[in-house]
């Protein structure tokens, strides 16, 4: 067992294997802190149309005018003036890994991205600090009219499509961090899937923060046209610095009639990253949106993927796993709004807290008047691994229609000593036995992931578990 002093020194787990960073000369680094000048510089460098510059500047004013967010996790130590809002690592986004600058390429090699692309992905985007440095989609999908680009690039190449959807689902005024993202956004993915096209294997974007005190503000926009399907996966890591970094993304997804989008996240930021993300999807008639959201890293996460069930018969799902270890607060959940009749939804949330970590489930389920026969089922289970750790549940349910069926279950449990003993009596050491129980606890969600990601998630949880034992 470690003593208390040692524990305090170990706020950042030593086994976070993505904690390395590159010492590199960036192509451009904006001055530290947030200002109108910085916003203008970003827009200038990107060579954006004037409407976007105005959008950014207006969002900045919205950001300033909004009070600090105090209803969730503690953000009081986050200093907006101590962050770099724009760091451009290289001059352009490449379509082959050979063209990506060597040190950046090596980083992604260490993260296993090019290998994953070769083995089981239909396309890959890689963002390094503020810019997308690599983007590639398989040729056959390009030929079918699928668009998979960095968001900045999409603004240039598909301005009309872009403008039709950008900021329409999550306007800057939605919340303080959406306003911040709207002012300084950079990078992210833009996806358009034409009617009836099924992208059978996942597209993945990988987000990497390299610089210290960095703010990463990617902006993702997905439009799945009628009857189409796409599975988008994002992963994220950052070096372990003593100072804080900020990741504040905005993700907007439009699922047209009969379309289906699955969006999977394995968030593994280092434990010095504030992760404050707004994600929302709009479902038309008979459309399906599925969020699979795994939060393992970061110091503070506030993220509540949302689905608005606007079209009759549409379906929304949020499956989330949060792991809060030492010094972490995962304040995560889901938001589902039933607007139309015959809409259905499912929320399954599993959280694990350990070594003084705190996991909070915060959910909103809203059924509007006229959403006849809406059906929803919410299950949130929390597993607390020791006496130092904490779990809270804040479920809000607001139903304004009588003809509905709503189920809600919540459980909080401690790791079961009899299960642990059973496994140990079969030769399995305590640490491994605990991880097995934890893996068993999240298994209903992990099985929803493609094999490669399920293995990755289990492995990350194993690492988190090992950090504590002994």
């Amino acid at each position, binding site marked *: 067992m470690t003593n208390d002093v040692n524990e305090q020194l170990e706020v950042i787990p030593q*086994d976070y*294997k993505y904690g390395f960073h590159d010492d590199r000369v960036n192509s451009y680094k904006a001055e530290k802190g947030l200002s109108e000048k910085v916003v203008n510089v970003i827009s200038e460098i990107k060579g954006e149309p004037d409407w976007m510059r105005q959008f950014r500047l207006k969002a900045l004013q919205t950001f300033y005018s909004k009070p600090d967010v105090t209803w969730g996790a503690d953000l009081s130590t986050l200093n907006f003036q101590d962050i770099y809002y724009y760091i451009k690592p290289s001059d352009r986004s490449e379509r082959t890994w050979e063209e990506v600058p060597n040190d950046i390429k090596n980083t992604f090699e260490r993260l296993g991205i090019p290998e994953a692309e070769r083995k089981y992905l239909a396309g890959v985007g890689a963002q390094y600090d503020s810019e997308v440095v690599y983007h590639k989609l398989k040729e056959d999908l390009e030929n079918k009219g699928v668009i998979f680009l960095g968001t900045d690039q999409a603004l240039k190449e598909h301005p009309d499509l872009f403008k039709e959807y950008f900021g329409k689902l999550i306007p800057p005024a939605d919340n303080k961090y959406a306003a911040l993202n709207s002012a300084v956004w950079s990078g992210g993915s833009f996806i358009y899937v034409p009617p009836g096209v099924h992208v059978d294997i996942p597209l993945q974007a990988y987000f990497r923060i390299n610089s210290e005190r960095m703010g990463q503000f990617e902006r993702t926009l997905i439009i799945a046209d009628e009857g189409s399907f796409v599975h988008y996966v994002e992963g994220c890591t950052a070096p372990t610095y003593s100072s804080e970094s900020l990741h504040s993304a905005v993700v907007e997804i439009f699922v047209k009639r009969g379309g289906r989008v699955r969006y999977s996240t394995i968030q593994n930021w280092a434990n010095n990253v504030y992760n404050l993300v707004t994600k929302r999807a709009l479902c038309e008639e008979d459309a399906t949106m599925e969020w699979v959201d795994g939060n393992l890293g970061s110091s503070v996460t506030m993220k509540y993927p949302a689905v608005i069930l606007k079209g009759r018969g549409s379906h929304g799902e949020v499956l989330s796993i949060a792991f809060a270890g030492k010094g972490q607060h995962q304040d995560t959940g889901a938001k589902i709004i039933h607007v139309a009749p015959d809409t259905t939804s499912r929320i399954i949330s599993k959280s694990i807290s350990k070594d003084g970590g705190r996991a909070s489930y915060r959910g909103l389920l809203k059924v509007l008047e006229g959403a006849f026969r809406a059906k929803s089922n919410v299950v949130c289970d929390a597993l607390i691994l020791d006496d130092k750790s904490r779990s809270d549940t804040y479920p809000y349910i607001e139903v304004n229609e009588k003809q509905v069926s709503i189920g809600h279950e919540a459980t909080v449990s401690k790791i*079961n*000593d*009899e*299960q642990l*003993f*059973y*496994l*140990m*009596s*079969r*030769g*399995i*050491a*305590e640490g*491994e*036995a605990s991880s*097995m*129980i934890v*893996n*068993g*606890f*999240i*298994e*209903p969600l992990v099985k929803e992931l493609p094999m490669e990601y399920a*293995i990755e998630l289990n*492995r990350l949880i*194993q*690492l988190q578990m*090992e950090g504590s034992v002994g």
Partner: protein
Amino acid sequence: MSKGTLEIINLHANVEGKPILKGVNLVIKPGEIHALMGPNGSGKSTLAYTIIGHPRYEITQGEVLLDGKNILELKPNERAVHGLFLAYQYPVAIPGISVANFLRSSVSAVRQYGKKTEDNSGAAEENHLIPMRDFRKELDEQMKMMGVEKSFARRSLNDGFSGGEKKRMEILQMSLLKPKYAILDETDSGLDIDALRTVSEGVNRLSGPDLGVLVITHYQRILNYIKPQFVHIFMDGRIVESGGADLALVLEDKGYEFIRQKYGLEINLAAEDKIALKEVVS
């Protein structure tokens, strides 16, 4: 003092401060089958749990030597590696862990397959596990012998299993782990005759010169299938009488009350323990 024995010497243990084991002495050698019979609440299961190292039981006196080595300081998983096994009366369910994955981890640990390396990469994770193909082959064979359907491997461990399925799973584990000493805790409870026969056949198949078995039971019934050479009567936290196989028959005829009176034990027996065992079972 000796190699090749499980020796329980003057073992005393408390549960929540209350003495339950009050000086147990027992020696089991490989190749031997012992039956430990006793009424409800006499401490039989406590003895089983204490031997395999449940933290709830506080040992106040005595030793347990496995092949001459005191195992009381060892963790339960280390005791398993040294060849101890308990088939539980009430195996716990662990949702989300498949039978196959659990067994692979367990078998790999008990056989000390490979050693975990410093490196935390995925490859190293796999290194301490028996290769999937070898394991599946072995598992399939054992499952077939235990009459367990293949689909069991994918189910969550003991989750939603019937009483008989749970007990069969315990014996399946025993057959894969190949312990030196196995304790069967009330393995007959909750089983119908067919299930009892299957489970007993499983145990008999495993028994031989390299395995010592301690069958803990309330009733004589299971001893019709698993034949012990030694029978011990357990009451008030210790063994009060030991004998050969015929001792179980005496018990069947005369019941625990007879033993209680014979030794003048000041304990309360449950109503069903006051009459002859054959009347209870029938």
